């Protein structure tokens, strides 16, 4: 008998069997439902995490190197303490680097600090005040929404101008354009000359739009005379990143007078480190998620197996009848496999139905949408669980001796 007819017949039989035992099927699917909800949410969360991460780091280009006193990723407190004792990176060093680094297309020294920002009676606290140069724009991945960015002369000079992050702009200015107005940062007022495009947040917590960029000169004058700088370096050719990194290292050693043989007293960070760390963390999360999911599905699968044994026992006579009139082993096997798979698929669909609204709840923390991929994985997983857990009972049914089966009550 041809396979398609067999499938169709098997499907009809199993739907009939499920309809005849609605309550039982519903209870049995519960385990699978829980398993699939876990699979789906886990998948959605991991995907959301990935998206959030990629979105966050997209502002950091692959062609960027970041010179800093600290390494981005610190593995121990003592390591951190060692870095803490390093000398600060000064404005003079940054200038020297800018002169010598012919491998870079842009170099932006940045100084950062939190301050509150005021405009008239409006106030925004904990705004990141960044002192930098006109080169901040190409190195930060930001772009100007309205107005313009700092000009080279403004960066050098002492004119108190500022460019707002989009969040600061919306917080301070409700019904008027920020351009041309003066906001107060710390002891000084700054004229707004531009607003940046919205950039989003880093992993949903740290907003990249809650910042104000001012000329570095202004920053050192009004906030801190000798800041510890970070230097963002955009290399000319991303294919030459490793060479540029090495050159950058040598230049920095020279500038900071590091004796030969001594270790670097600065760090050069790049996106790869982040990506690597992220993959480690994401891998761990996925591993734990997989384990929990696997456990839930395993329990669900045992439930299916159990109920399929019951189903086979109950329908021993039916199996006998079918065998007597010509059903082969394969046919019986398929019939019960389909039944198990159908119960599981049903559970999978219910699970997806439950998980779908839950993804909206997750969306508050992570950019979460239930992707077709996740739906596909969930349905495939439920199908596989059904087939695996249904196999043993179905095999027992298939191997039944027709004489004994017909004799069953």
């Amino acid at each position: 008998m041809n396979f398609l007819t067999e499938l169709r017949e098997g499907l009809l039989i199993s739907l009939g069997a499920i309809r005849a035992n609605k309550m039982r099927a519903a209870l049995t699917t519960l385990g699978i439902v829980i398993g699939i909800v876990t699979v789906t949410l886990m998948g959605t969360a991991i995907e959301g995490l990935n998206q959030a991460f990629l979105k966050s780091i997209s502002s950091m280009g692959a062609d960027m190197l970041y010179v800093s006193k600290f390494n981005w990723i610190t593995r121990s407190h003592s390591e951190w303490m060692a870095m803490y004792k390093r000398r600060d990176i000064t404005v003079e060093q940054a200038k020297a680097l800018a002169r010598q680094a012919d491998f870079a297309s842009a170099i932006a020294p940045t100084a950062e600090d939190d301050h509150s920002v005021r405009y008239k009676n409006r106030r925004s606290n904990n705004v990141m005040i960044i002192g930098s140069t006109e080169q901040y724009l190409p190195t930060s991945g930001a772009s100007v929404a309205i107005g313009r960015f700092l000009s080279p002369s403004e960066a050098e000079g002492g004119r108190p101008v500022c460019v707002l992050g989009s969040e600061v702009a919306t917080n301070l200015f409700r019904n008027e354009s920020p351009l041309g107005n003066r906001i107060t940062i710390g002891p000084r007022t700054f004229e707004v000359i531009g607003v940046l495009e919205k950039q989003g947040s880093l992993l949903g917590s740290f907003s990249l739009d809650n910042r104000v960029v001012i000329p570095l000169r202004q920053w050192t004058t009004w906030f801190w005379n000798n800041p510890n700088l970070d230097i963002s370096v955009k290399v000319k050719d991303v294919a030459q990143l490793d060479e540029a990194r090495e050159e950058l290292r040598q230049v920095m050693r020279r500038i900071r007078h590091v004796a030969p043989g001594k270790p670097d007293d600065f760090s050069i960070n790049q996106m790869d480190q982040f990506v690597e760390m992220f993959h480690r963390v994401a891998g761990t999360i996925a591993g734990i998620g997989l384990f929990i999911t696997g456990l839930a599905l395993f329990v669900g699968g045992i439930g299916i197996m159990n109920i399929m044994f019951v189903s086979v026992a109950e329908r021993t006579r039916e199996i006998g009848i079918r065998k007597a009139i010509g059903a082969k082993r394969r046919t019986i096997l398929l019939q019960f496999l389909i039944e198990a798979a159908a119960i599981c698929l049903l559970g999978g669909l219910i699970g997806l139905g439950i998980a779908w609204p839950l993804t909206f709840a997750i969306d508050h923390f992570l950019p979460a949408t239930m992707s077709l991929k996740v739906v596909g994985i969930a349905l495939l997983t439920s199908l596989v669980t059904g087939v695996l857990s249904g196999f043993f009972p179905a095999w027992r049914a298939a191997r039944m001796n027709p004489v004994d089966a017909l004799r069953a009550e």
Partner: protein
Amino acid sequence: MSLIRFEKISRRYQMGTETVHALREVTLEIARGEYVAIMGPSGSGKSTLMNLVGCLDSPSSGRYELNGTDVSQMDDNQLAEVRNREIGFVFQTFNLLPRSNALHNVELPLIYSGMGSEERRRTALESLAAVGLADRVHHKPNELSGGQRQRVAVARALVNKPSILLADEPTGNLDSKTGQEIMALFEELSRKGHTIIVVTHEEDIARRARRIVRIRDGLIASDERQESKA
């Protein structure tokens, strides 16, 4: 040539440490078109004989040729195919699928033989019409009387045009009037040339057949042909 040829067929069962000889070297031939009753008290081996004839079971030793093919060495799946093609079963307890209607019950052997759905439906309807149930095709077994259920079973047994109609106590669960009707149906089928084997312990059911094989203690006790009744 015989349709059924049993050559020294034995069937032994292992019951714990004891070996039960259900059939002891039985030799039997049944020709195409015969109407045979197999009789015997319970435990005589007649059920075992029926299971072997119906290819539900394989002999421990001996050779069984059905329609010229040796079926005694076949495996499960081959036997299923033979049952599907050659044997139509009618059981005492009807053995219809309770959740399926009459039509689907009758279609079932055709599904297993791989017939296309349109032809299958037509063939099944014909078969139901032949047993006088054309107006009951969408009824489920529990919506039919005992006699009607057994008719559905007969329609199912015949739908694949098997070589043998094998009935196991076909009237056992019917009142005597309905039983008579079923037996009349068998006679009609026999007249049309069907080979019929009825296993029974009821003398008057057996008397309707043209040949009575009596089994006792796993052996054929007698094998008598009767004059066909007018």
